[in-house]
């Protein structure tokens, strides 16, 4: 193996095709998009040099802070929700549902494999207010409450988006964290139990520290996914009411492809890239310190 990896031609042979394809479909479009930030126009109207005008526009755009705030709020809420609920389910699988665990795991994992648009339509119907009353509002009314027009106000629309995305992905994080929890030696737990540690004390002092690496991985996965969220929100609310649930990704898409301003759309994409980079650096710097502490 060492002789193969020591041979430059072999390394080039092994990496070359993948690197070429990756460069063509990832790096070239990224650089291309970066180039667009200095132009205005579209493929239809043609492009003209704009210098740094798109960046100035970014600072003056009243819609941008709203989209940026929604993106951050969405990423934080969904990430916390996905990982917390996933972790809770994983603990449930390992410590309370040892026998029925596989059935529950399968049921909870099921939404992960459903198409996003199908899930969004399901939730639209579930929370429907008019012309029909959906099951949620029917239940509220049956309990004596008044039905809620969930998709007509920013707060309630965000709540449904959050519920849907947490429900859709909690099974994935539960399985991921479950695999991490299985690595914790039973002997350690038994020893702690014999020493008189209760369930909460065991979780706090043994389970949490030992599952920290996989928790961090889950956080990275989740933040990565939530900052780029597009399809689920687009299918559920279309960015509305008005533009109240419009994340940066959707704003970028609308600017480029609906409003025909590729240059400014690319500048919004660059903003998202910078945001992702900042979050990634923040997480990795933090986790390096935490993991060093664990070791």
């Amino acid at each position, binding site marked *: 193996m060492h002789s193969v990896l020591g041979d430059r031609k*072999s390394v080039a042979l092994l990496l070359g*095709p993948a690197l070429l*394809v990756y460069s063509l479909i990832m790096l070239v479009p990224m650089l291309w998009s970066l180039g667009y930030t200095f132009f205005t126009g579209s493929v*239809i109207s043609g492009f003209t040099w704009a210098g740094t005008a798109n960046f100035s526009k970014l600072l003056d755009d009243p819609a941008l802070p709203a989209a940026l705030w929604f993106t951050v709020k969405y990423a934080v809420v969904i990430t916390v929700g996905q990982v917390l609920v996933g972790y809770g389910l994983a603990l449930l699988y390992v410590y309370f549902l040892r026998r029925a665990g596989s059935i529950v795991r399968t049921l909870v994992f099921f939404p992960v494999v459903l198409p996003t648009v199908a899930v969004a339509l399901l939730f639209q119907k579930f929370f429907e207010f008019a012309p029909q009353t959906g099951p949620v509002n029917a239940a509220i009314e049956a309990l004596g409450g008044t039905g809620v*027009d969930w*998709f007509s106000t920013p707060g309630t629309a965000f709540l449904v988006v959050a519920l849907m995305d947490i429900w859709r992905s909690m099974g994935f994080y539960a399985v991921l964290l479950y695999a991490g929890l299985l690595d914790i030696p039973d002997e350690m737990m038994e020893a702690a139990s014999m020493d008189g540690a209760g369930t909460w004390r065991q979780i706090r002092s043994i389970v949490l520290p030992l599952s920290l690496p996989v928790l961090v991985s889950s956080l990275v996965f989740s933040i990565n996914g939530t900052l780029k969220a597009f399809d689920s929100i687009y299918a559920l609310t279309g960015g509305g009411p*008005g533009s109240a649930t419009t994340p940066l990704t959707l704003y970028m898409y609308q600017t480029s492809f609906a*409003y*025909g301003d590729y240059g400014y759309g690319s500048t919004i994409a660059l903003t998202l890239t910078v945001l992702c980079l900042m979050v990634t650096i923040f997480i990795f710097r933090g986790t390096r310190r935490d993991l060093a502490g664990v070791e």
Partner: protein
Amino acid sequence: MAPHFKAKNLMAAAGAVALVLSAAACGGSGDDSSSGSSAKNFSFLAINENTTIAKTLTTLSQKECATQNTAQPLEIKNQAQASLDQQLQLLAGQGALPQLFTAANAPSLTSQLADNGSVLDAASVSEGVLPAASSTIKSLYDGKQLVLPTELNIEGIWYNKKLLADNGITTPPATWDELVAAFAKLQAAGVQPISQAGKGGDGWGVTRWVGNYILRQQGPDALKKVADGQAKLTDPQYVAAADAIAALGKAGYFGKSPTSIDYATALNTFLTGKAAFIYMGSWALSDFNDDTKNKIGVDNVGFLKFPAVTGGVGTADQMPANVGTAIAISKKGYEGDANTQAWVKCIVDNYGTVALRDSSQITGFATDAGVEVPALTKEIQTEIGNVQTSVLWFEAYFSAKATTISQGNGGLLGSGQLTGEKFMQTVTANLG
């Protein structure tokens, strides 16, 4: 083992695979009509919300244009109206527009496509287009005939005669004040006064009310003045119009939740007798005349011109008129393809008659005089013939962005959640 020989061969093979993969990744759909030879199909990009055009073209392909269809079979693809403009831009960017497509929601986009050489100026192929339709199209597209008029519409407020009579409204409201009084009366009686869509891009149903109120209050040039920079939508008199519509929303006249209702549901609500009024264009005649959809009966449908506003300078005979869902021809698909040219000629010659005969749809094409039409269609034909001054809709002069923002916020205005001022500020900020 001879590692050098193997490595070279493997390298070449890997390179070839990578090239094939990258070529596949960059490849188009393969339905290329630009090669100079005739395209395999005659493709039409339809919208889900309008089934009449697809139905009429299908009939043409089986009857009047059967010969053209044999040479180039009709192929219909569907798109949601809300995302039509995005789709057209993407297709145009790839040089992959079908030969025939539904014209963009924002006329400014169709003009851009024409400037870019993607859309044919159909003036030379449209001798069967009625002068009234041609004039409307040219006023929208800076003197060019960029679309074919599969509709020739007037817009107004349609009402359920029986529902009004049952609630003591024996004379159809003739002024804005009478109309609002009728809404209040119906609301008090537990009847939904207006059915109007406000979900996502379907918010145009509500913004039409705003546009018409402005035109009635300030005259037919009011929206042109905004386009020319002589006035702003945030000026008090324009805000007052949006406030008048927001007041209807606040009173609940647009129903339980206009933000949840799309076009089809809004129309269905009216046609099943669950709402008394609906603002709509005469393109809906095909639905009004379809007894599988219209459960209140076509004789029960009445038409009101948008009423005059007290103290306003606009009058009710200034009719909102348009060519509705029009279709455009791809220049690249048309030029050099004799089969496509034959198809287009056949459409221009026969579409008007078939649409009127089979769907009671009034179009901007000449029709055979012998076609029998239902009474309501006849009444609207007369109204169209009497139009002296036509006015455009609220977003007619807006950019694609402002159109999207305006229509996306229409539902919130119709539910009373946005004030007129906030609505106008939001639209103005995006006028560009």
